[in-house]
């Protein structure tokens, strides 16, 4: 790499770290959210835990290939993982388009969507440290499901979680950008949010969907958001399966990034800055 490109890269990384840090600091300004955040996710987890407990007690030792402790670990990782990857990037982008504050983003010499994703990562880190990790240990304690046994299993879980986060954030950018074309798309974003929760496997593992749907859902990007890290956490992935999912994740990230670049280009020409 040339020295100039080298220096640009260093500046870029330091800028992105700083953006993530600022988001982290902004969230710390509202500390009261912390406890409500943890409690809400524990309640979500608890209700699904007891629901599945009843199902397993009625149905026997295992469901599909899953035992109950595996199911509990899957749900724990699912809900606590959601505390990490969930963000309102789509709504924030839509709001910036609608209220015209996007104008201020466009006078800055950086990549708007890149900066947004990095900020979301700062938020994700905050959510991970303050919601997801304490939530996960509390849930494991209360529901007595096994935590990953090996460093490799922890590593696989964290790597899968990061891939899921990036896929989700790219999807959010894509849906947020659609507001360039609709201007009011709350209903649309709401539908997307529910679709992500259902199709990503937060509520139930994709293995339990009917046969013809399973391979389809497993190859969609949504499955990477939750189904993938949850299985890594619960020890349901062999190394070759982990590798295959990682490749699928990287491919979807490339496709989504390309789609975003095209959409961004079209959207910019249609931008109308409302008010002021």
């Amino acid at each position, binding site marked *: 790499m040339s020295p100039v490109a080298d220096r640009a890269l260093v500046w870029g990384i330091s800028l992105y770290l700083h953006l993530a840090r600022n988001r982290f600091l902004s969230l710390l300004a509202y500390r009261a959210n912390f406890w409500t955040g943890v409690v809400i996710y524990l309640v979500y987890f608890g209700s699904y835990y007891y629901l599945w407990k009843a199902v397993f007690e009625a149905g026997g030792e295992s469901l599909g290939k899953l035992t109950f402790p595996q199911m509990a670990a899957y749900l724990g990782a699912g809900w606590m993982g959601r505390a990490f990857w969930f963000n309102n990037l789509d709504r924030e982008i839509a709001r910036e388009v609608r209220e015209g504050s996007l104008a201020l983003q*466009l*006078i800055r010499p950086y990549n708007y969507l890149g900066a947004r994703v990095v900020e979301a990562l700062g938020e994700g880190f905050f959510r991970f440290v303050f919601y997801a990790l304490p939530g996960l240990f509390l849930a494991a304690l209360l529901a007595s499901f096994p935590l990953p046994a090996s460093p490799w299993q922890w590593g696989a879980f964290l790597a899968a979680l990061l891939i899921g986060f990036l896929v989700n954030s790219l999807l959010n950018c894509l849906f947020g950008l659609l507001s360039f074309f609709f201007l009011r798309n709350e209903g649309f974003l709401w539908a997307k949010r529910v679709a992500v929760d259902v199709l990503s496997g937060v509520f139930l593992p994709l293995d339990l969907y009917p046969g013809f749907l399973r391979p389809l859902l497993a190859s969609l990007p949504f499955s990477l958001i939750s189904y993938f890290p949850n299985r890594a956490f619960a020890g349901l992935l062999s190394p070759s399966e982990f590798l295959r999912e990682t490749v699928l994740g990287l491919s979807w990230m490339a496709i989504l990034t390309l789609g975003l670049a095209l959409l961004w280009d079209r959207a910019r020409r249609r931008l109308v800055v409302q008010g002021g």
Partner: protein
Amino acid sequence: MPGDDQPAIDARGLTKEFRKHVSRPGLGGALLDLFSRRYEMVRAVDGIDLLVQRGETVGYVGPNGAGKSTTIKMLTGILVPTSGHLRVNGMVPWRERARFARTIGVVFGQRSQLWWDLAVQETFRLLQKIYRLPESVYRERLEELTATLGLSDLLATPVRHLSLGQRMRCELAAALLHDPPLLFLDEPSIGLDVMAKAQLRRFLRRLNRERGTTVILATHDMGDVEAVCQRAVVINQGKILYDGSVERLRSLRAGTTTLEEAVRALYAAAGREK
């Protein structure tokens, strides 16, 4: 910087059209709108020519909805023009947006570019990274702006606790941290009290005099124009009505003595011609 010999702004036939949704009247109309929407094209900026040399101070004047903001947004690379030729600092603003953005500063009176939840200095730190300012350059520049704008007590304050006047001073510093040769201000004095307005105007004059910064000031406050600008461009309904010195504008029509009256007479005359 490269392109010092080029004009700051060179626009010819600059035009921006928007598609505007037209609602049909009544409930039946609203239902019809669900299935087929009707649009009409609105020409917000209609073929304007504008040549600004480096170091000029230009007041861009017009009533609400005249196309002022739309022009500024094309000049700053935010909006893509529908047609026309446009070079600002020798670049096509929207096409070379990131590179171009390093050469301009922008202040919007109605929007803030500061991080709402963080202390003012956090925004400046971030801007240092965004504009890739070496530590020594950044410190020197910040010190200078802190002194001229009186920011020393504000740096550690969260933005949400600032008064409007204090915030505007911080916005100016944020827009000028990277020392751009060209500064755009869109209605910067809206809502400011008399003291804050006077301070803003003094600062802009000094900036232009001492650093040679080109200042484009979009406003409908004639006081701003009189205090800061040598040249005035008056726009209404997307077309330029007047382009020349502030001095000449004042005495353009017999019987007008203030700039305010002169501009009003200009709008009225343009209205009659239509």
